[in-house]
């Protein structure tokens, strides 16, 4: 049986999209594990029905494995789950109204569940996170310097990093790399050549755009919920 991961993010309270994805996945061959990489909530719509469904899946639903994303971090900040800090970055960038909309969109009874979510998962040699291993709010894209991508992979000690924050879908491989290091200290000099083993960063998309990952072959498929599976064609520097 083919082992596949379905990687979803940015639902932002949209139960209809979630149901569409669940419907898609029922038709997808293989043994599917569903990961929801954050931003289950957002300020645009009431999120309670989606949160209730994620916590209490229907009997024929794939069990979702969820982590928290940027919007979850904002509501936790604003609700006092991060000590004295509040969602100031959100307040400054989007205004008080958006802060209010966010807190109104999520019933307080869900906050403990959100607060218990993990920053990310490490499965096999893969890291599954919302932003980056440095920050839940960091955007990793095709334009991110490879040195930065490599650092974010190194921090989690993984070979593949699945990220959602940028909302983009891409599969960027770091195929090879080299750097020469020479250290001089009180004991003398030493030289070392360090090489990069093959690694990859995969943008999984958001909302209806999600990603299927074939664990056995390392292939990704970028999918739009409700449409047939398709491989995306993307170039450097383009969305």
């Amino acid at each position, binding site marked *: 049986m083919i082992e596949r991961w379905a990687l979803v993010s940015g639902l932002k309270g949209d139960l209809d999209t979630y149901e569409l994805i669940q419907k898609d996945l029922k038709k997808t061959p293989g043994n599917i594990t569903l990961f929801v990489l954050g931003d289950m909530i957002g300020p645009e719509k009431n999120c309670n029905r989606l949160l209730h469904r994620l916590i209490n899946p229907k009997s024929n639903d794939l069990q979702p494995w969820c982590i928290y994303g940027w919007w979850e971090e904002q509501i936790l900040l604003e609700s006092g789950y991060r000590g004295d800090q509040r969602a100031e970055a959100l307040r400054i960038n989007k205004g008080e109204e958006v802060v209010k909309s966010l807190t109104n969109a999520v019933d307080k009874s869900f906050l403990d569940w959100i607060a218990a979510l993990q920053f990310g998962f490490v499965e096999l040699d893969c890291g599954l996170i919302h932003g980056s291993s440095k920050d839940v709010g960091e955007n990793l894209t095709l334009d991110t310097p490879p*040195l930065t991508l490599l650092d974010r992979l190194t921090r989690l000690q993984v070979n593949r990093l699945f990220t959602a924050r940028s909302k983009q879908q891409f599969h*960027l491989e770091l195929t*090879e*790399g*080299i750097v020469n290091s020479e250290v001089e*200290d*009180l004991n003398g000099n030493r030289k070392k050549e360090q090489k*990069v083993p093959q690694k990859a960063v995969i943008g999984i998309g958001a909302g209806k755009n999600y990603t299927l990952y074939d664990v056995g072959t390392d292939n990704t498929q970028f999918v739009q919920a409700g449409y047939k599976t398709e491989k995306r064609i993307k*170039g450097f520097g383009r969305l």
Partner: protein
Amino acid sequence: MNQAVISCLHANLPAVEAVLKDIELQGITNITCLGDLVGYGPQPNEVIELIRDKEIPTCQGCWDEDVVDGLDACDCSYPSQLAEKRGHFAHQWTTDKLTTENKDYLANLPYSIRKDKCLFVHGSPNSQHEYLLPDMDAFAALERVENARAEILFCGHTHQPYIRELADGSIAVKIKNAVPKDTQEKEIQLPMRRIVNAGSVGEPRHGGTKATYVVYNDVTNKVKIREVEYDIELTCKAIIDAGLPPIFAWRLKNGFEFAEQAEDASHVCER
């Protein structure tokens, strides 16, 4: 022109005075300090006042930050619970001893100082608590310098002086699923960058007893590690007289500082 970079003074006045004398003897007037003026040692106010009197530009170190903001370190700071207990005792002792004026001085130190292509920090550009050890992952080390938009990164915190050159680097990338393939592959050349660790004036951890600092010549671009002898007995006596843990004196006298050394060179501080 030669400039001296000193770090991790750790309230060891005889060591600081000896190093400043050595710098003066070389005719160097341009000095930058990378912080940790206090902690472990018995003369925190005296060391701060000396640095202030000489108007030496200084970054805030992790001890300087913790004395002001309270302890807030990730578990990379101490290798054992015993070391942590000693560290916390020294933190409280230092906090009690410091004058309000000197605490204000520490509170207002900058995280980093930039001079042209050089960036001066205590730990790393990310945090005063992050260790840039000499043999850490070369790409991660290069990332710290490059993302800080510097050519030479001067740091301390490890108490081990070193000069590391990262050169002739490249990374090849490819977009999977992309067509046509030839437009979707590229190789990025990485710039040559250097990390210079100034070691420690007041609490060396290089296996010897001498204080260390570095001299950088911005014309020749050369860096030299300097070792300086100082009156260790004087500092050891002051540590005992102050009621600080006697092991702090024993370590200085025997040049065995590894009790407080970060063990995992690959650790990336998440603080």
